[in-house]
C-alpha cells in the first residue's frame, strides 16, 4: 500500500515537471533558456521511464538526449550567434490559432482514450527487462540494429559535409 502511494506520487511529480518544462520550452522568449528547459523535460521523461521499470531506456535517454542532443544544440546556438554577431530572435507567431488547433487535438486524443477504455492490468515485472531488450536486439532485430549503425555513420558524414569550412 505504501509502495503504491510512493509510485503514484513519483508519477505525478515526474508528470508535472515534464508538462511544466515542456510549456517553458515552447513559451519562453530566450532560445537558450528553452534548450535548458528541454533538458529538464528530457530528464523527467527518463524518470517516467524509471516508473515503468525501463532502467536501460532511462539511462539511454539521459546519456543520448540530455547529454548529447542538448550539448549539440547549445553548441549550434553559440556557433550561429558568433557567425551572425547578434542574439538569436525567438519570437512566436499565430499563437491563438495554434493554441486552438492543439487544444482541439488534445481534446480528440483524450476523448479517444476514454472511448477506447485501455485499462490493461499492469503485469508483474517479468525478469530483467534490460537483458530481454539486449537479447531481442541481437536476435530478432539484428538487421535493424545494424542498419541503425549505418544510419549513424551516414548522419555523421552528412553533418560534417554540411558544416565543412568554406573553400
Amino acid at each position, binding site marked *: 500500500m505504501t509502495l503504491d502511494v510512493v509510485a503514484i506520487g513519483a508519477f505525478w511529480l515526474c508528470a508535472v515537471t515534464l508538462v511544466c518544462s515542456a510549456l517553458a520550452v515552447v513559451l519562453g522568449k530566450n532560445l537558450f533558456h528553452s534548450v535548458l528547459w528541454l533538458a529538464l523535460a528530457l530528464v523527467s521523461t527518463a524518470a517516467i521511464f524509471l516508473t515503468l521499470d525501463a532502467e536501460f531506456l532511462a539511462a539511454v535517454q539521459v546519456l543520448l538526449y540530455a547529454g548529447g542532443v542538448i550539448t549539440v544544440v547549445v553548441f549550434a546556438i553559440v556557433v550561429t550567434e558568433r557567425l551572425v554577431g547578434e542574439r538569436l530572435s525567438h519570437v512566436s507567431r499565430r499563437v491563438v490559432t495554434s493554441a486552438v488547433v492543439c487544444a482541439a487535438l488534445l481534446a480528440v486524443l483524450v476523448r479517444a482514450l476514454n472511448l477506447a477504455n485501455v485499462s490493461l492490468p499492469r503485469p508483474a515485472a517479468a525478469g530483467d527487462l534490460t537483458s530481454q531488450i539486449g537479447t531481442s536486439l541481437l536476435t530478432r532485430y539484428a538487421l535493424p540494429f545494424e542498419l541503425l549503425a549505418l544510419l549513424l555513420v551516414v*548522419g555523421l558524414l552528412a553533418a560534417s559535409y554540411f558544416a565543412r569550412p568554406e573553400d
Partner: protein
Amino acid sequence: MSLSAYLTLAAVVFCIGLFGTMTRRNTVGILLGIELMLNAVNINFVAFSRFRGIETGMVFTLFAICITVAEVALGLAIVILLFRTRRTASADHVDWLKG
C-alpha cells in the same frame, strides 16, 4: 498508475510540442518542438510495452532515440549552413529550392 494516465501525459506533451512547432519562427525552436513530440511518442511506446509485457516497444524506443539523435545532428548542420549562406535563422526566409 494506469496505462491511460501515461497515454494522457504523452498526449499532453505531444500537443505542447506541436504548439511549439507551429508557433516558433526560429529553426532551432522548431527543432525543439519536434524533440518534445518524439519524446511523447517514446513515452507511449514504453508504456504500452510495459503494460502488455512485450519488450518490442522498448526496442522501438531505442531505435527512435538513436534516429532522433541523427536527425538533430543533421538538422543543426543544416541550420549552421543556412546561417552561413543566408544569415537567417527564420524558417519563413527559407523559401527557395535552388541551391
